[in-house]
């Protein structure tokens, strides 16, 4: 039994989530191999060599892979997939994009958003926006699955033995999709999906100006990432990648401060596993209070400036 972990990169660097993927894979017996795909991967490769539990690093380095097209990445994974019993990748826009292609071509089912790996055949995953959990058994020759990163604690430590490195000979890649542009929001803040503290705003912020004028200073004080409800994103208060919830990011920070967010089930899906939840809402009956550790009922236009100034 050998597991293939497909790591996500960002700007040619390894994302922290790889350590959670390794953690998720530990109950599966056998070796762990790591695949990185992209172009100009020397730096990422050096980072991979530090990772514990990895016996082999496979590098797919090609100029045509720099746009992370799902069609191409699936082809790369398929060229080695038959050697593996399990294929793990993060349940992010990256992993969700190509892994189902791999599964379909291998004629095996895929598991999405796995939150628990019990052994090589038993897994748990949330359904209905996390309102329910299903425990499943799969006995396929290859099991591809996307992993909900926030459900696993990162493995610590460094590689003691050193992994072997294999440069992949590139399969023929399809050319049916081209990236025209990429607009990533540059931010000096911690990233939403890995931040220890998240300040998140909803419709209650009432305007884009207010959203930023009130929440940015608070986030600065707490070294926090900014998040938002769908309503806040739809209304243009915040960009789309701020969205937390069933269809946005699913996170588990140490502290989540929900400001002017009612707590719809689709929003809770994204943050209810935070260690500590604070709700600031003027409505004492808002459902967000039912999941929060500390509720402050009040007008956010007064509470937030006061909180920011007293921190």
């Amino acid at each position: 039994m050998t597991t293939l972990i497909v790591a996500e990169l960002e700007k040619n660097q390894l994302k922290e989530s790889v350590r959670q993927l390794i953690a998720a894979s530990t109950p599966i017996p056998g070796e762990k191999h790591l695949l990185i795909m992209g172009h100009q991967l020397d730096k990422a490769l050096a980072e991979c060599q530090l990772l514990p539990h990895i016996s082999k690093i496979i590098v797919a380095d090609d100029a045509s892979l720099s746009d992370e097209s799902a069609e191409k990445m699936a082809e790369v994974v398929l060229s080695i997939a038959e050697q593996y019993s399990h294929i793990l990748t993060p349940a992010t826009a990256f992993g969700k994009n190509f892994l189902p292609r791999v599964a379909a071509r291998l004629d095996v089912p895929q598991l999405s958003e796995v939150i628990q790996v019990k052994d090589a055949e038993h897994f748990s995953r949330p359904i209905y926006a996390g309102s329910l959990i299903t425990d499943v058994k799969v006995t396929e020759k290859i099991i591809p699955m996307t992993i909900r990163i926030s459900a696993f604690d990162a493995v610590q430590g460094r590689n003691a033995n050193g992994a072997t490195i294999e440069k992949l000979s590139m399969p023929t890649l399809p050319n049916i999709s081209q990236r025209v542009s990429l607009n990533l929001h540059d931010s000096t803040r911690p990233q939403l999906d890995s931040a220890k503290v998240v300040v998140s705003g909803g419709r209650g912020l009432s305007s884009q100006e207010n959203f930023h004028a009130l929440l940015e200073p608070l986030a600065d004080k707490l070294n926090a990432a900014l998040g938002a409800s769908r309503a806040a994103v739809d209304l243009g208060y915040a960009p789309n990648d701020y969205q937390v919830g069933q269809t946005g990011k699913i996170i588990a920070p140490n502290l989540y401060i929900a400001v002017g967010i009612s707590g719809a089930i689709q929003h809770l899906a994204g943050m209810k596993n935070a260690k500590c939840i604070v709700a600031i809402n003027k409505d004492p009956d808002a459902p967000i209070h039912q999941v929060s550790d500390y509720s402050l009922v009040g007008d956010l236009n007064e509470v937030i400036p006061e909180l920011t100034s007293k921190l």
Partner: protein
Amino acid sequence: MKILVPVKRVLDYNIKPRAKADGSGVELTGLKMSMNPFDEIALEEAIRLKEKGIASEVVAVSCGQTSSQDTLRTALALGADRAILIEHDGEFEPLAVAKCLVKLIEQEQPKIVICGKQAIDDDANQTGQMLAALLNWSQATFASKVEVEEDRLLVTREIDGGLETLSVTLPSVVTTDLRLNDPRFATLPNIMKAKKKPLETIQANTLGIDLTPRVTILGVREPDPRSSGVRVDSVDSLIDKLKHEAKVIA
């Protein structure tokens, strides 16, 4: 240009789902069912392309039980021209759905398939990508904007750090994100008209596909509840609790 839109009948998003008492599955009896919200967006996009004169025909297809006819009637009332039910009584996994859709696509020859990025019941987020892979088509997932050019689509996608725009070769599979459009509501006259539109049924077991579920569901349960916390009456008391009780800020 023909567009195919797969639609799924799911528990209405306003209803809190519960596990069956014996933990064998999800309790659905007697509860309100609706079209998966992401599929409503997919259908709306197809209908708008038809209204703009870009699409010639919009065909809605549902894979599921007889009751999915309701969802297809809704699709017809919203503006689909025809509907097809691929009927199957049991569990219908994404891979099996994708395989059934491949068979239908071989007959129907659409240029674009627009589906929801995920269904709000199993939250799998797989069918569109699987379908594209089996057909060897391009894909553009999590779309927030779609423009049709001669033989390509320009699609803006919502990704983790921001937005990406792709140019994909047709035929293609698009999966929709929430911000692609605001779906319309069906009007009463259109609901009446929809009753006369064609709705064909194909038995899934006549398609030569193995529909046996391959993921065994051992149980469905509710997650451990979060104990509800305390009310604090002032900012000072909040800061005190965060520092000394929860110890999440310094």
